[in-house]
């Protein structure tokens, strides 16, 4: 699908130098599932970054990093780093567009240097679809009827992509929305899992993620889920790769268990945010 219909873009003659790399015997294109599994896991069931298959990467969360935004959050999950800024509620841009319920506008963007292959500075189709998925997930969590005729903007910028960006974006966005005092039913926690023929890897890194170009064997797939732990509802579900319903059930179980474990961490971050806000307000009052 043409990306930018107004500007004529000449043919792209630049290509990544990694294509000139010498392909050794372990070339990923010709890899069978068994070898792929050996590449990712050794005989002690330990992954390349020393994690167990059901261990997620350590999570780091911080709010209030964008001073101009109503609410903002920063998440680091291993090497995946992203920032979310929330603006609003404010008037809808086009007056003719207002609805009785509030509207959510999400923009998901990869920084051009965030992935191994340079990304365009304008949103491409993949980012547009991810923005749509994020919006649908957050619409389930945000109390839209609390700000009629208004819009809330959620902007996600991925600074470094090392696997599972959508999952991190879901958690980061709901943390930013909560810190912006937007009324919500529940927090959305995102999680991703990689399916291999006989194993499931929670929170895959970029190398562990399923790539559509590489492996076409059965029972190889990627699942990203957005889960609301208190309400026990799934608000985002994206699955790519070949699988069958029984396996999908297993993957869903692992992911929802992880989300329940992460919920207290996100809540703790929010609690600290509120304490900081109250403390700074207290100082302002004293100064006056």
């Amino acid at each position, binding site marked *: *699908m043409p990306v930018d219909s107004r500007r004529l873009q000449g043919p792209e003659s630049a*290509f990544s130098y990694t*294509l000139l790399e010498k392909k050794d015997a372990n070339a990923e294109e010709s890899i069978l599932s068994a070898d792929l599994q050996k590449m990712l896991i050794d005989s002690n069931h330990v992954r390349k970054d020393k994690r167990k298959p059901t261990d997620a990467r350590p999570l780091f969360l911080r709010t209030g990093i964008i001073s101009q935004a109503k609410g903002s959050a920063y998440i680091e999950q291993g090497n995946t780093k992203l920032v979310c800024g929330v603006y609003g509620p404010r008037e809808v841009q086009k007056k003719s567009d207002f609805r009785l319920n509030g509207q959510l506008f999400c923009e998901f963007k990869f920084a051009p240097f965030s992935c191994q292959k340079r990304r365009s500075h304008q949103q491409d*189709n*993949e980012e*547009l*679809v991810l923005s*749509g*998925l994020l919006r*649908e997930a957050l*619409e*389930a*969590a945000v109390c839209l009827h609390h700000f009629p005729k208004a819009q809330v903007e959620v902007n996600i910028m991925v600074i470094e992509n090392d696997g599972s960006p959508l999952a991190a974006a879901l958690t980061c966005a709901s943390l930013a929305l909560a810190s912006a005092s937007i009324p919500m039913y529940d927090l959305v926690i995102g999680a991703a899992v990689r399916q291999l023929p006989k194993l499931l890897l929670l929170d895959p890194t970029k190398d562990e993620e399923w790539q*559509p*170009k590489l492996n*076409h064997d*059965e029972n190889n*797939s990627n699942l990203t889920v957005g889960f*609301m732990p208190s*309400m*026990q*509802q*799934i*608000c*985002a*579900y*994206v*699955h*790519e*790769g*070949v*699988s*069958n*319903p029984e396996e*999908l*059930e297993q993957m*869903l*179980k692992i992911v*929802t268990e992880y989300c329940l474990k992460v919920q207290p961490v996100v809540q703790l971050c929010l609690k600290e945010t509120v304490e900081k806000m109250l403390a700074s307000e207290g100082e302002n009052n004293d100064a006056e």
Partner: protein
Amino acid sequence: MAEILLSEAEKAFIHHGVQDDLRCDGRTRLGYRPIILETGLVSNASGSSRLRLANSDVLVGVKVELASPLSEKPLEGRLEFFVDCSANATPEFEGRGGEDLANEICRFLQMSYMSGDTINLSELSVLAGQQCWVLYVDILILECGGNLYDTVSLAVKSALYTTQIPSIKVATMDGDQPELELSEDPYDTKRLNTQNVPCLVTLMKIGNHYLVDPTPEEECCSSSGVVVAVSGSKKITAVRKIGSGSLHPESLVSMLKTASEVGAVVNKILMKKLLEEETAGKTQKVGFMR
């Protein structure tokens, strides 16, 4: 989808019907509306099909062209999808209104075709690293009557089934300029194996039950659903949750199980009908007269 205005009473009517497994048009929850399918309508395309699922009308044209393969995949051809929501389909698609939906359908189709061995792309290679076939699949949505994902996927599968790719021979290398020779016989073509091409199944959740092939009114009553890409062997190649509502994990799991069974049946029936149409030979093209 079109803005359908439903009163509370109408919504309640639909809800109660779904509970009793009797929808407004008399179908059961897992029943499809009548489908009219015809292939080979567009003479300038290598493969084409028109599929009408009750009020949803989709026309697909496949054009094959020669191009250089992607640098990461020198031994494979590729499929490029393009979805165009015509402004005729529904008033919302006027101007750039249909772009978001078109983009989503396009992207989901791409994803479901890339997973698994749906089409053997190495068959599309002409000269390794230099020339390959690119199949441009252009989907035109003429009328929107609910359940676009399913309609589009069935039409695309039919169009790919009938696509004829001319046979090209590589003549002897002259220095380093290989010459491509197109066969003189216009009927000397090859076809793709579309056995494993996925069909999309949309399931919308209304109350405690889910429906297959929702009408626009039913889509309006429902807050969430899933679109599942099912290949011929009951395998799921892509799933996406649609709508602004949320789903309980157990409902989601049972929806996926149902989708894979429904998808397998739809695939089988479609292949059977396409084979029937092919063996029936050249008959009068009905086209848009019906």
